[in-house]
């Protein structure tokens, strides 16, 4: 069980440079998303969201059918499907294939699914070199950090941070101009692409009726990773399925816009099997590793299974006032922000990080921007109730439970409620006063006062004033 990382959160809030970096980057993404989803620019945006939600709902509720359909078409295309229960099975397959083929160097394009199972570490542990080729991911690999954000993994790094990392890890001269920095990375990575034995990618969508893997990106590194090496392995969660190629028309319209404010990303690759005899480019071998890693557990809950609709656009992170304060690394798993807060407890069990569903003001901004209309606040509420139940089973949280029981009892007894309020006012209150301190403040009162002043209870409650007003009028 992880405790609330209070110290680390405090450090993030106190780091003005970090706060500035997060605010600038997420703010830019929020503005760009807003601009390309406005009714003037995209009149059918809300309908697209509804459609996307319905398509995902249909797919998730018929997942067994679409998984088999996908396998059938992929196989017909000459690809090979590998079912993986978890990260160990994914790594084992790749390791054994690499051994058979004598492969040593792997290039990787950006994939949250492989981050989820810490694939690089597993491969490196067995002597393979796995190089991230997305610029942000590459920076973080050099810095030995996990992604800060689903879409913009190095969002928290300024160009000065990047200059330091490149100088230290690549031995190049300090370079703070972003364009020059990308050229440095390009030079290093180009060599890796040409020498790589295997390319590993994720998948944005798996198209069942064509057996294709759809990948969107802006840097061209995913296209290179999936076509230059002789072997391409796509690692994807089972929830990435969509029924038909034409459904991409809905999702591609939403994904780029929601993620980076682009009507379409620079590259959209739809990969359907290995190189054919008439084709010039492409891998000789094409594998799709379909991974469960806890996803089928989510299918069991009819309300919360919508968490699997997520297309990993990151819009909920950018708009989330909590993410923007505490940053990506204070979430317990690689999935941060609101989507992380709802899927982490479902994958790992609510008692792993019992504080997580409570770390939200329930402002609802996430649900408003979600392109597949996941009801994130409602799921957070459901998870809170689950945490409380689990805690009570373990004999924890008894005091809080008791407090709410007493409170509920009081709220059902108006006379006592009034008496309690009046007593509180008598003890604390003076007319029109805000309290900057309360003697012997503990618990919630102390927590409130650490950031704010506290309104003293009104000397006379509304109900009392109302009675007096009525009496005064002789009513």
């Amino acid at each position: 069980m992880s405790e609330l990382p209070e110290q680390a959160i405090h450090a993030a809030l106190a780091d003005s440079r970090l706060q500035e970096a997060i605010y600038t980057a997420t703010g830019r993404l929020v503005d760009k998303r807003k601009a390309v989803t406005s009714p003037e620019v995209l009149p059918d945006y809300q309908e697209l969201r509804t459609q996307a939600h319905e398509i995902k709902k249909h797919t998730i509720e018929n997942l067994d059918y679409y998984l088999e359909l996908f396998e059938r078409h992929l196989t017909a295309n000459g690809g090979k499907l590998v079912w993986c229960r978890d990260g160990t099975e994914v790594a084992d397959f790749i390791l054994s294939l690499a051994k058979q083929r004598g492969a040593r160097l792997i290039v990787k394009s950006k994939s949250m699914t492989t981050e989820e199972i810490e694939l690089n570490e597993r491969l490196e542990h067995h002597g393979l070199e796995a190089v991230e080729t997305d610029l942000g991911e590459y920076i973080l690999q050099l810095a030995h950090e996990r992604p800060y954000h689903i879409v913009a993994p190095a969002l928290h790094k300024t160009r000065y941070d990047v200059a330091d990392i490149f100088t230290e890890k690549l031995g190049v001269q300090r370079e703070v101009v972003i364009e020059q920095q990308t050229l440095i990375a390009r030079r290093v990575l180009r060599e890796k692409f040409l020498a790589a034995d295997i390319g590993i990618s994720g998948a944005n969508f798996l198209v069942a009726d064509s057996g294709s893997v759809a990948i969107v990106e802006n840097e061209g590194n995913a296209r290179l990773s999936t076509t230059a090496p002789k072997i391409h392995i796509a690692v994807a969660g089972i929830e990435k399925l969509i029924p038909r190629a034409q459904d991409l028309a809905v999702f591609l319209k939403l994904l780029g816009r929601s993620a980076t404010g682009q009507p379409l990303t620079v590259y959209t690759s739809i990969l359907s099997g290995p190189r054919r005899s008439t084709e010039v480019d492409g891998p000789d071998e094409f594998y799709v590793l379909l991974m469960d890693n806890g996803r089928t557990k989510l299918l069991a809950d009819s309300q919360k299974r919508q968490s699997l609709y997520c297309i990993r656009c990151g819009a909920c992170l950018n708009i989330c006032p909590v993410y923007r304060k505490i940053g990506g690394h204070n979430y317990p798993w690689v999935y941060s922000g609101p989507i992380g807060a709802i899927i982490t407890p479902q994958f790992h069990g609510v008692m792993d990080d019992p504080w997580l569903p409570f770390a939200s003001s329930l402002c609802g901004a996430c649900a408003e921007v979600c392109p597949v209309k996941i009801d994130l606040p409602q799921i957070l509420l459901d998870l809170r109730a689950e945490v409380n139940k689990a805690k009570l089973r373990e004999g924890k949280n008894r005091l809080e439970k008791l407090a709410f029981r007493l409170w509920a009892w009081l709220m059902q007894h108006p006379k006592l409620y009034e008496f309690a309020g009046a007593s509180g006012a008598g003890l604390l209150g003076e007319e029109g006063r805000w309290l900057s301190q309360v003697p012997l403040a503990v618990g919630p009162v102390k927590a409130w006062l650490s950031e704010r002043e506290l309104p003293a209870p009104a000397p006379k409650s509304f109900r009392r004033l109302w009675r007096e007003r009525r009496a005064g009028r002789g009513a």
Partner: protein
Amino acid sequence: MAARVSLFVTCIIDQLFPQVGLAMADVLERLGYEIDFPEAQTCCGQPAYNSGYREEARQVARHFLDVFDGAEFIIVPSGSCTSMIRHHYEDLFRKEPARLEQARRIRDRIWEFSQFLLEVARVEDVGARFHAVATYHDSCHALRELKIKDGPRRLLARVRGLELREMDPPEECCGFGGTFSVKFPEVSGGMARTKIDAILRTGADTVISVDSSCLMQIEGAMRKAGHNVRALHLAEVLASR
């Protein structure tokens, strides 16, 4: 003949900001409504619901349903409490058909104050006069769960002497979030500071909202930081002459 309306003033306003309830009553009386205040009312149950205590929330919600069962119009000076009753009671009573039926009946009879003025009373100009440079804070539940956006601004635009300025960004949360504010005080306080910066940038001397809980957070944090911006509920402004 004047219609009769029932007030649900919410526990926060009853105990901490009774002047807001009185102001709301003033506005409604001036519009000719006869006012009923069911004395047995307490809370809508949201604190327990949002904290994950469903059973406790249900108990309080049942009490609410009983108290307001016969009311034709229930008017609430809070977007958050209105939304709790309108949207979340159904979730609470999924397994209690009789209560579910009652919750659905009440859903169409409960009105957030500004929505009632605009959609039922059909009035934009309540004859208010209030000298201030003000900015309007969109409370999250009013904005996103009840779609209250232009309404309060339209009402404020008709207040004589009031200049309304928009915040940039306009829709960010103040950081209150009920128990969130005391479970994560530092994060909540950080969110309040971001909100306050947006308020200060407008140069307004008054911040107005339809939720007293947001205003408690905003004003509490402003006082702590030594800023002199008034925080007022929409009803208080509309009741001014």
